[in-house]
């Protein structure tokens, strides 16, 4: 007799789990004559976080009903976290709050009315054309997202630059990884990490700084944890952070420094490496030079040595405060330098800083000094927060100063190359970069931007000091289009809301942290009239061409005319981008066609210039001859590593002399606390998605302020008390969580909550890094005060008013 269907599903669950770790179970399901657990399975990528976990969606009767990880995927080996397990609840008709119809209002103080797509696209085209005619091309802007598919970012920026003749193309990756981009380019001459996740299984020392990997990248953390547990005595984990987090659990050494003193700590580690002769002399001789200042002046090793002399562990320990002792710094430096392979990992704690690029440089310095690069387990690896910040925005040309495939706007040759590849007249793309994110919303405030398109992101909540920028977005003379799947703090300020398809409801590519492009094809229908963005942009561009009587705008979308929007259209866009634009560039993706991507369980890591190379998975480690086809192609000598990155004409790695610099705003007598912000495991960014999954919302229904027990005692604050957090910019009132997380003198608030009283970006500061223009979300000054005892609180999400 066969099994019941329920038993069958339970066995499937057990067998799937067991297959991950190679455990044999005493039963199999092969003999069972049951209908399988789904009608069909569809490969794709998780919609949340930058890990890029691969999974298969089980569809039954047209509905998403089951999920399983893909064990052969080199990103996640099949594992998923709870967010990855539950996001199917937002798909198709599974969620009642999905946006399903275009909505419009002429004035922002009016209610929205449902309109047809024809009307909506006409309005969007007319308003953008009107702004261009009256105020010039730079009066319009696009603000996109590291969650948009690569095809979407690519076509948006093509129409903006080639069609509307403006470089006002930005996106939220400016808020999260611009400093990492700046760091990679200035240190290694090329953007994005050298190695891959495979180093998690090969590293002997992990240096985790400014990253709560356990909560922000749980599935990657699992790999680090496994490596540590399987090699308890030989693998060392150093965690450096002003806050103790779940990531610290596996650390052998926790370095808790005061916010903003990280540059001193990193320079002090370099001091120890130099003082104790732990550097790799051959590596330095063959591959590195030392540089300083704006002019990038080259200096010698002696000069560098005298520079780090100023950061003795004793002095740095005094600057860093917290639990830092000179001995801890020495220990960390020794483990770092002496291990067989050291892997550094960081995210926003390093990037979202006034000197984020410098902090990135100083981590890279340690790797260059010790030769901890390009060999197994050795890597300087920035983790990405969003699923397609790397693939779509960094590579696809989604920021104001970059064109597709790592080309700088300001380089005439590269700009003209793009114009030629697009078949549009030379000079069509302006030579000047557009507004970076903070400048863009400042321009909105000043009424310089008259029409803005915001796609798949919610700046009204995610910009630092957001009240200041919401004022501009509220202006009646600024026309705002928002494309999204749910109502957000930003749709509240829009004139036109266009409902879009979600992942698995459309087709396209995400490129995750490790240079890996992965395809997700459509598996279920989008709800109501929601449409894929690529269709929206194409149709809008055709109307714009008419309104402005400009055939070049039409030319930008001509290769895509007549294509069916669910698969053929994104495929044609991907083909143009990869075959034409990435050809010969360092992110050469010509081998990664849709057909190749479909064949692989995970995807392809660039460089992947040919199909043969792509079918092997692409390039695991860049710059190594024999492992990276471009290292062979560009080889200048017989050395095993070839640093051919486009930004360093000398083809060397650059060690930078960068001094300690504090944050833009330091605590003082009026605002005596540091305020830092971050995430919890259950939510993601502005919670417009995770907040709508009731399991995740119930687990974390509202934000709180974490206060160190010693500070709480001094101020008479008890768990659950309502506490006001006030800065020079704004105020929140949040329940207190008394917790040995933040160091003394620092409070921490997570930034997902949409309730006005608990939206922490009303309090944060909009100072930004002068190099990367990334804002300093991680540090500002605040004061805290108990305002009442515990109060009952309700979760809050923006709803669409009927």
């Amino acid at each position, binding site marked *: 007799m066969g099994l019941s269907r*329920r038993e069958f*599903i*339970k066995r*499937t*669950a*057990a*067998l*799937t*789990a*067991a297959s*991950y*770790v*190679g*455990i*044999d*179970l005493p039963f199999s399901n092969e003999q069972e004559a049951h209908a399988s*657990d*789904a009608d069909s399975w569809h490969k794709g990528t998780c919609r949340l976080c930058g890990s890029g976990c691969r999974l298969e969606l*089980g569809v*039954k*009767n047209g*509905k*998403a*009903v*089951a*999920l*399983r*990880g893909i*064990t052969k995927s080199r990103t996640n080996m*099949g*594992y*998923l*976290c*709870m967010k*990855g*397990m*539950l996001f199917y*609840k937002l798909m198709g008709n*599974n*969620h*009642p*709050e999905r946006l399903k119809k275009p909505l419009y209002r002429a004035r922002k103080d009016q209610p929205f009315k449902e309109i047809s797509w024809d009307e909506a696209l006409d309005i969007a085209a007319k308003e953008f054309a009107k702004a261009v005619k009256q105020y010039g091309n730079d009066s319009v802007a696009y603000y996109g997202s590291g969650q948009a598919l690569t095809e979407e970012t690519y076509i948006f920026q093509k129409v903006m630059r080639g069609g509307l003749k403006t470089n006002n193309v930005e996106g939220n990756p400016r808020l999260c990884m611009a400093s990492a981009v700046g760091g990679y380019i200035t240190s290694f001459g090329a953007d994005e990490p050298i190695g891959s996740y495979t180093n998690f299984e090969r590293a002997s020392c992990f240096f985790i700084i400014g990253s709560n990997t356990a909560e922000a990248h*749980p*599935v990657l*953390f*699992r790999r680090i*944890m*496994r490596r540590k*547990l*399987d090699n308890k005595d030989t693998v060392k984990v150093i965690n450096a952070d002003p806050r103790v987090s779940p990531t610290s659990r596996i650390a052998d050494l926790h370095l808790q420094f005061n916010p903003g003193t990280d540059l001193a700590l990193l320079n002090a580690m370099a001091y120890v490496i130099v003082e104790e002769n732990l550097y790799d002399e051959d590596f330095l001789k063959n591959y590195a030079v030392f540089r300083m200042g704006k002019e990038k002046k080259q200096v010698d090793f002696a000069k560098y040595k005298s520079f780090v002399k100023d950061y003795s562990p004793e002095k740095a320990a005094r600057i860093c405060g917290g639990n830092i002792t000179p001995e801890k710094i020495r220990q960390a430096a020794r483990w770092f330098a002496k291990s067989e392979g050291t892997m550094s990992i960081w995210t926003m704690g390093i990037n979202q800083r006034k000197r984020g690029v410098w902090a990135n440089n100083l981590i890279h310095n340690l790797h260059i000094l010790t030769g901890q690069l390009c060999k197994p387990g050795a890597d300087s690896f920035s983790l990405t927060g969003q699923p397609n910040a790397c693939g779509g925005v960094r590579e696809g040309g989604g920021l104001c100063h970059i064109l597709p495939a790592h080309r700088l706007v300001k380089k005439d040759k590269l700009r003209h190359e793009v114009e030629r590849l697009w078949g549009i007249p030379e000079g069509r793309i302006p030579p000047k970069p557009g507004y970076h994110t903070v400048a863009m919303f400042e321009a909105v405030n000043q009424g310089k931007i008259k029409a803005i398109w915001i796609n798949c992101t919610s700046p009204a909540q995610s910009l630092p000091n957001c009240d200041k920028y919401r004022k501009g977005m509220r202006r009646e003379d600024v026309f705002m289009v928002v494309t999204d799947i749910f109502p957000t703090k930003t749709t509240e300020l829009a004139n036109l809301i266009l409902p879009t398809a979600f992942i698995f409801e459309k087709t396209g590519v995400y490129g995750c942290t490790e240079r890996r492009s992965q395809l997700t094809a459509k598996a279920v229908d989008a709800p109501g009239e929601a449409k894929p963005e690529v269709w929206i942009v194409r149709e809008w561009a055709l109307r714009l061409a008419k309104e402005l009587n400009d055939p070049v705008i039409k030319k930008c979308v001509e290769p895509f005319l007549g294509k069916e929007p669910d698969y053929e259209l994104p495929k044609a866009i991907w083909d143009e981008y990869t075959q034409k634009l990435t050809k010969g560039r360092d992110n050469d993706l010509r081998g990664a066609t849709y057909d190749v991507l479909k064949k692989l369980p995970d995807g392809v890591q660039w460089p992947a210039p040919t199909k043969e190379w792509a079918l092997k998975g692409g390039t695991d480690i860049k710059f190594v001859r024999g492992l990276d086809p471009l290292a062979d192609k560009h080889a200048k000598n017989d050395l095993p590593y070839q640093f051919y990155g486009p930004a360093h004409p000398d083809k060397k790695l650059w060690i930078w002399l960068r001094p300690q610099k504090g944050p833009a705003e330091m605590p003082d007598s009026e605002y005596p606390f540091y305020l830092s912000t971050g995430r919890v495991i259950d939510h993601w960014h502005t919670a417009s998605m995770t907040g*709508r999954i*009731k*399991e*995740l919302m*119930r*687990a974390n229904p509202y934000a709180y302020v974490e206060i160190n027990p010693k500070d709480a005692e001094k101020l008479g604050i008890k768990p659950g008390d309502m506490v006001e957090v006030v800065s020079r910019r704004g105020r929140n009132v949040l329940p207190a969580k008394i917790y040995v997380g933040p160091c003394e003198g620092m409070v921490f608030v997570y930034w997902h909550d949409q309730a006005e009283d608990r939206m922490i970006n009303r309090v944060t500061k909009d100072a930004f890094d002068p190099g990367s223009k990334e804002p300093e979300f991680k540090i500002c000054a605040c004061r805290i005060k108990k305002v009442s005892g515990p109060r009952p609180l309700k979760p809050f999400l923006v709803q669409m008013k009927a």
Partner: protein
Amino acid sequence: MPVGGFVINVDPDRIEESIKKLTSFRGVEIHGSDEKGNVIAVFESSNSHEMEEMVKEIMKIETVLSVGLTYFNAEDEVEGNANQG
């Protein structure tokens, strides 16, 4: 009634003790383990909220280091439209 397949990582020095604790949860079946501390578990709950709660509770066990989901089936929940926000 969702069903989830999990690999639970427990402290390799305290496997027996961890499995004992895990089996005391209602709706948790243990199907196997190895010397590295990988434990194969199937969770069954009346809805996916309860499943999330189970994961949270299990994470609280001192010897449990991580709970990794590998398979999830919620067909009757989706059919029954259990996703009201």
